[in-house]
C-alpha cells in the first residue's frame, strides 16, 4: 500500500515514519507532503491508499485538504495525526469523512490499534 504523510514539520514526518515502522507497517511505500496544498496535489497525482495528515499546516489545513479531496470525488482513506484534539474538531473530521484521529504525542501501540484495521 502507498501511504501519504502530510505534516509541515519534517521532524514529525520522520517520527510518523518511524512509528509506522515500530507498529509493524514498515513495508508500505511512504510519500511525504510538507503543506496542505502539496498534500492535495500528491493525493491526486500519486493515488495513495491512505493519507495520514496533520491538522494545522500552511497553505491548507488538514481538514481543508480532506474536504477538497472529497469535493473532487476522491475517496482515499484519510485520517489525522494532530496535537489538537477537541470534540468539535473530531466531529468536523468525522463529518468530512475522516477514518481516524490520533493525538500527539502518540505511541506505536496507538498507531497499531488505529491503523491495523485499515492496513491489515
Amino acid at each position, binding site marked *: 500500500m502507498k501511504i501519504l504523510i502530510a505534516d509541515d514539520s*519534517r*521532524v514529525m514526518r520522520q517520527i510518523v515514519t518511524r512509528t509506522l515502522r515500530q507498529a509493524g507497517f514498515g513495508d508500505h511505500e511512504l510519500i511525504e507532503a510538507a503543506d496542505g496544498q502539496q498534500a492535495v496535489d500528491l493525493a491526486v497525482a500519486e493515488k495513495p491508499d491512505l493519507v495520514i495528515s496533520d491538522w*494545522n499546516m500552511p497553505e491548507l489545513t488538514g481538514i481543508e485538504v480532506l474536504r477538497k479531496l472529497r469535493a473532487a470525488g476522491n475517496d482515499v482513506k484519510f485520517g489525522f495525526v494532530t*496535537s*489538537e484534539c477537541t470534540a468539535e474538531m473530531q466531529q468536523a473530521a468525522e463529518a468530512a469523512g475522516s477514518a481516524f484521529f490520533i493525538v*500527539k504525542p502518540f*505511541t506505536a501501540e496507538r498507531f497499531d490499534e488505529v491503523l491495523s484495521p485499515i492496513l491489515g
Partner: protein
Amino acid sequence: MSDPVVTEGDLAEMVEQVWVSYLDPEGVSPLVVHGDNKQSSEVHSTVSITGSWHGHLVYASSQYAAKKAAAAFLAMEPDEVSQEDISDVLGELANIVGGNVKAMLPTGCFLSLPTVVLAPDTASYYPAAERISGLYGSWEGEPVSISVWQSMKQEASA
C-alpha cells in the same frame, strides 16, 4: 482568585506524555520540576491561541536542551542535528503542548502555527497578557520551561 484554566498540574501531565513518547521513552531522564521561574533560557517557541480564549503557550530551554530534544525526536546524537532540526523540534514541542492546552479551553479556539525564536524567552513580550501558569524544571541539568499566558483584556471583558 479562581484557578487558571490551565494549571501547573495540567502542564505537568502534558509534558510527561511528551517525555514518555519522544524525549525519554526509556523513562530514565524525566523533566525534574523545581519551580524556579527565574531560570534563564536561550531559545523558545510559541503558539498563539485565539477565539473564545486568547493567549500564548511558550516553550523555552537552553540551546543544548533543544539540541538534545531534536536528537531524541530524530533518534540521532546531539552533535548530528542541524539548526533546522532544532528549530523544527522547538516549534513542534510548542505545537504539541499548545494543542493539548487548547483541548482544555472553551470550544471555538484556534491554534496558530508555531513561531521559533533563537533567543531567550525574555526577548519576547506578550502585550496585555500575563502568565497564568508555568512549569519550570531541568532536564539532565538543562533548563526547560513551559508557560501559559492569558490576555488580560479578555479577562476584563468576560
